[in-house]
Structures are given as structure tokens and as C-alpha cells.
């Protein structure tokens, strides 16, 4: 259902990722979040659980990013 919605949203978002202000975002993170939101759209998953999963994805991305960022190594 709504078979193209996720692809359309993804196209619009990915086209903007190269802007410096979105430097902290990766295509993989965007993809995972859209997948999660998609589940929320089409599945009987409770909303709080989806939000917790989104939070978890962002936390993991932040942790990874801070490890890779040499300025934060101290």
C-alpha cells in the first residue's frame, strides 16, 4: 500500500543530504528511520514503540559519530 510514498520521501530527503547543515546525517540513518516510519504507517505497531526505536537509532548514530569525531576524543 502507498507503494511509492517511502521512495518519494526518500528521494526528496537524500537530494538535500549534501548540504553542509545536514552533515551529521547519513543516508543509512535516513533509510532506517524511513523504514521505521513505514512500519508505523502500515503496521499495528504502537506509536510509543516506534518513537523509542527512532530514539534508539539516533542515539546509535550519535555515539558512532562522536567516536569518529577526533575533536571529541578528549
Amino acid at each position: 500500500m502507498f507503494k511509492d510514498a517511502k521512495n518519494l520521501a526518500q528521494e526528496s530527503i537524500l537530494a538535500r543530504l549534501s548540504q553542509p547543515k545536514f552533515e551529521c546525517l547519513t543516508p543509512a540513518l535516513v533509510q532506517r528511520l524511513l523504514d521505521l516510519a513505514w512500519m508505523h504507517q502500515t503496521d499495528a505497531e504502537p506509536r510509543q514503540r516506534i518513537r523509542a526505536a527512532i530514539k534508539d537509532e539516533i542515539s546509535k548514530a550519535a555515539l558512532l559519530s562522536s567516536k569518529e569525531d577526533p575533536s571529541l576524543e578528549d
Partner: protein
Amino acid sequence: MKIRSIQLTNWGPFEGVHSIHLDVSAGSPVVVVHGENGRGKTSTMRSLFWCLYGTVRDGYGYKVPTHELVNNQCCNDGQSSEFGVQLIVEFDAKDYEISRTGKVRQMPDALNVESEELSFRPVGEHPYSESKSIDMINLMLEEAIADFYLFDGEKLASVEKKLNKNDSDGQQFVQRSVERALGLSFADRLMSDIESVSSGFSDAISGQAKLLDDSEKLVLKKQGIEADIENLASDKRKLVEMRASIERARGDIANKLQDFDLIRDRLVERQLLEADVLSDSKKLDEKREELRHEADSSWYWPISKKLDAITLDLEESYDKSKKIDESNSKTLAQLHLLESNLSSHSCSLCGAEVDESSKKGIESRIKDLHRQIGDQDFEDPIVFADQLRKLSGYREKSKRFPVLEELVKSIANSDLELLTKKSRILELGEQIGSVGNPDILMLENDKDKLTTRISESERLEEQVDAKISTERSSLKAIQLKIQESPDLDPVERKKLEISDALDQILRESYDEFRENMRLQVEAASSNILLQLSSEVEYQKVSISPKYQVAMLDTSHQVLPSPSSGYSQILALAFIGGLADVAGSDNFVVMDTPWGRVDRGNRKLIMKWIRERSNQTIIFVQSGELTPSEAREHFGNKMGRQLSIVRQGPNSSKIEEI
């Protein structure tokens, strides 16, 4: 999703339990259900809606009460009976049983629905909870887009009207349909989720910052702004809800006005005729008065009347005298014969001799005949004919009396016209039927008022949005100051940075996402139009940025007014386009979708159906498509043919052909 079977219990014209097997193979996905009007085609289609969502709406969006859907013969006075619909569907290679049942009781005036219950289960397994059942049904076929897959001629006509109108109602309908098809709500919900997660990260950072003396004031300020934003967001939600309810009310009025469009011309005609009749009756009275006056003041008029009366008397006398004259002629001929027999002593007819006794008889008969002629009060008809000729001359002259003659003619004509108008008023009254005399002006007034209120609400929403945006900028500035604090956990800071960036990128992508949806539906509808159209100039469906739908020709110019058949094809292409972009693997059910489409385009519609790979169920009347024509058109794509036939008064059954 594929429908394997439908079981109807006391539903529509189907009394008792009736099963409809619709299972088809992938190579032969077409099902044709034949049935005359009133046999139960629409009831069968509505059973799908009711089973899945518990409600049925007519083509104009009005809810059909459940008791009107139930078989009205199913129970006697005061008794109750069960009714319901059970579907077996295949979804993601698994079979599910969806069953919605209820109880009705026959009350003196109507059926009363006493209970309804939904049951959903994978075949052979335990039923799901009600909320999970509803979620599963929406996962299979979202209610918001179900009418792209289940539609009838009425729905098609309603879409066609909205597309033709191209006013703000029509554009809103197109925009909503497009956004329903592609799930704009998906992006809305994602933005809301990211915002909520981001707010959680922000609170966590504020919690840390609070521990630092110099950040405490900033945190307090931030919390104040957050509270303001929350209040503004709550105001916005209320405004949006209010606007939605006003839009619904306006939609209802628009629908009513749409219905009234059908009778509006008749009402206007009737109103004009009623005014005409009033004014004509007055003029006729004046003419009659004038005639009376002329008649009273004219010597010729009463004389003319007298002449008419004399003529009538003379005509009667002439007729009478003519009859006597004819009878006398016969009597005289008889007398002549008898006298000749007497003088010749023999019968002139048979030659027999007249003896003494016969002679006496003949003499007696001659006397009788003389008496018969003598007794009559007879005047020669020639006298009457002469008098009548003279009178005719007088009357001819009296007819030339110009004023009276004109008045009489004019009154007779006016009388006839008045009678014709009165009869047309009666005829219009019957056509308008039970709708009565709706105050269209009042409805249009109400609609205009609601449109103004919607504009006001939109203006207020924009103001609230602007305030929220300002507050968000302030919040952002404070957040950045808090984030700059060197003692904060860098990972927490990163989380907020990422969630903020996600929030921003989603907001910036939203309009493009929406625009892409429009283009997708436009392309899908154009693709279907090309398959449905037999005219080379109908090349493309255009959905403008303002959501106006039109057909374009080969040079991409808008075709100003397509024929009514092509308006219907445009509506079908639009619905088909919505269905195609919303989900390609669903069944489609079409109830008598041909309408005003000509035979050439009907064939193309059938070709389009034949080329679809999903289960397609079409309900047709015999005048539209016979079983042999269906077999010929669909060939090996034909999966099943069924017929809904009359079983008795108000009762039908379904048979496999």
C-alpha cells in the same frame, strides 16, 4: 489482496445464507457478475465495505444506515434475526476470515439493528482482538483509499462532477485524493515522531545544563518558550480541527447543492411557470372582462348568439324533415306498386292474379299508407335548406366583427397556453418528487459563509505558524547556547544535533514530496487514459499545481469541454491512477461502470480490465454485456461468471454461469 469468497446472510435482497465464490487464478483474474436492476449488484458491493469497515457510504459520501442494508423479509414483527457478511481473503500468501455479523429486530415501522460484531482470524486460527482486527484490515486495504478499489457508477458520476467543476471544492477533492493515495500522513507522522524524539533529547540536555549554575536561567527561558510553543501548537490543532469540521460541513452543503443541480433547472422552470400562470390568469380575466364589456355594448353580439340558436333549431328541423321525406318516398313507391297491382289485377312482381280477398287486403293497406303519409307534420327540407343558407350568410358576416372575433380567439389561445403551463407544472412537480422546494439560495449562502470562515481559519493558522516559527528560532538560539556549554555530554549534544537536522530536512522535503505525489498520480492516470481512449487527441491527464484535472491533446493544450462519455473516462482514469499508485496488488470491484460511455470505449475499458493482472470483479446489466460477449471479450482472462437472479418478490440468489 484477493477475495476468495463472500457469504451473505440476510443481506440486501438475499434472504437466508448465500455464498459467492470469487476465487480466481493469476492467469484468469476477471470475474463478471451479471444481474438486472434491483437484483443485488450494489448490495453485494456494499457488503464488502460493510464487512471491512462497518459503514457504507453512497456515491456522494452520505452514510447508508445499516438497517437499510439488511434483508427486510428476514424476520416477522417483533422477532429478531441474524444478518452479516463473511469474507475469505488472501493477503500476503495467507488466508484470512473476516466476519461482521449482527442482529436485527422487526419493529412496526422498520428493522432495528440491535448488535454488531467484528471477527478477524487467519483461517483455522484463533480470532484477533478487535483493535488488532481493525489494524489488520487497514493494513490490507486502508479505509481512506478503499473507494479507489470499490466503486460504482454513482461514485464515478460524483468524481466526474467534482473533476468537471474545477472550483475550490473540486481542487480540494483532487488534492486530498492524491495525498490519500500516496499517504502524505506517513510524512506527517514521521515529522511528529522526530519532533517528539528531538524534544526528549533537548530535555535531557536541559537536565544536564540545569546542573550548571550559569545555564539555569537559559534552561528556564527555554522551558518557557517550549510551553509557549506547546500552547500555540495546541491552538493550531484546535484551529485545524475546527477548519476540518467546517470543511466537512461545506462539503455536505456542496454535495447537497450537487444533488440539487439535477433539479435546479426544473425548480427554476417551475418558479418561472408559476409566475407566468399567475400573470397569464390575470390577463385572461382582463380579456374576459373586456369581452363581456364588448358583448354588453354591442348589438351584434346578442344577435349573433340568437342567429346561432336559430341555426341550431333549423338544422334540427332540416334533419327531421329530411328523414320524413325519405320515409315518405319509400311509402309512395309502395303505394304506387299496390295501386298498379289493383288496376292490373295481377302482382307486378310475381304475376299472380289478384282475387277478391287479396283485393280487399290491398285496398286496406293503401288506406293505411295514405293515413300514414297524411298524419305527418311535414315540411319540405328544401325550405329549411334555403333558410339555413341564408342564415349561414348572416353568421359569416357576424364572424367578421373584428374586436369580438379577436378577443374570442385570444381568450381561447390563452386558455390553451395556461392549461399547457399548468400541466407542465404538475409534470415538474412529479419529477422534483420528494425533494420539495429546497432553498438553494440559502444553501449557497451558507456555503459562502463557511468558505469565508475557512479562509479566516487558514489566516489564523498561518499567524499561529508564524508565531511558532519565531518561537522555534528563539528556542533554537537558546538550545545552541546551552549546547555550547563545555561540560555537557558530547554524545547527548550530538543526539540533539542529529534529531534537529532530521526535523529540518523532513520539513524542507515535505513540499517536494507532496509535489512528487501529484506527478505520480498524473502519470498513472495518463497511462490509463491512453488505454481507455479511442481518440488520438486525448493524450494526457493533467493535474495542475492547483489540483485542476484536465485532458490534454497531442500539443499538450487543455481540451476545453470533452464529451460526457470522455468526462466519464477521465474520472475512470483518475480513480484508476489513484488505485495504481496506492497499491498495485489489490483487487478492484466495479459496479456498472459503463454509464454514458459508447460501445467503442466500452471495448477499450474491457481491454484495460483484461490487461490488469489483479483480481477484477465487474457487475454488469444484461444490456451492457451478455455472458457470451463477456467470454468473447475477456477470453482466457475470464476466471468466473456469475448471475444474480430473481428468486421471488424482493428476493435474489446467485448462480454460477
